[in-house]
């Protein structure tokens, strides 16, 4: 696997609590992405970053925010978790938007 780690790998939280997921890369790639994977939906883009402090929304950004203060770290925050945000979250990186993306191992989030 490319040098991408995600933490935590598993989390159970209650509705209404804030949650932050971390993606860390050692590849020095400029672009970073957060996806969620749900049965029947494939992967859907939540937010992405094209540089430090440069982020933009994806297809399913409502209820999520991101931050990127360093090249290697991309944080995804659920300000107030809801049951509909129960999902598997993947981080990905790429050198360039035209290049392939490399994925982290995923975080399984359950909101009860």
């Amino acid at each position, binding site marked *: 696997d490319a040098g991408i780690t995600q933490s935590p790998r598993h989390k159970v939280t209650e509705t209404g609590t804030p949650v932050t997921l971390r993606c860390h890369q050692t590849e020095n790639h400029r672009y970073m992405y957060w996806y969620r994977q749900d049965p029947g939906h*494939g992967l859907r883009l939540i937010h992405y970053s094209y540089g430090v402090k440069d982020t933009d929304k*994806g297809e399913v950004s409502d209820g999520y925010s991101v931050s990127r203060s360093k090249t290697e770290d991309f944080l995804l925050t659920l300000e107030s978790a809801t049951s509909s945000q129960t999902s598997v979250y*993947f981080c990905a990186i790429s050198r360039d938007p*035209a290049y*392939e*993306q490399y994925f982290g*191992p995923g975080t399984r989030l359950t909101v009860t």
Partner: protein
Amino acid sequence: AQSVAQPEDQVNVAEGNPLTVKCTYSVSGNPYLFWYVQYPNRGLQFLLKYITGDNLVKGSYGFEAEFNKSQTSFHLKKPSALVSDSALYFCAVRGTSGYSTLTFGKGTMLLVSP
């Protein structure tokens, strides 16, 4: 808007037989096309891509894909399936302009029986 269709939720094939996993796409302009594979409880792994050039693209683990512009298709193929090829396969597309992002299909489960 760009989109990807993987018309089969599941493909079943016997070991040693050829396999095809179908993908059609819609995008403005020329496409960048990708195939990824996901094994249970793992992240997605890149298999191959089409950017430009030869319509037949060869990738990892003996997989190849054929780009067909007139049919807007990018089917994944392998001449002889292995049981270990059983996994979830995703096709993805992006346009060639600006900050266009990847759009994934819903995935096709490939089951290879011994």
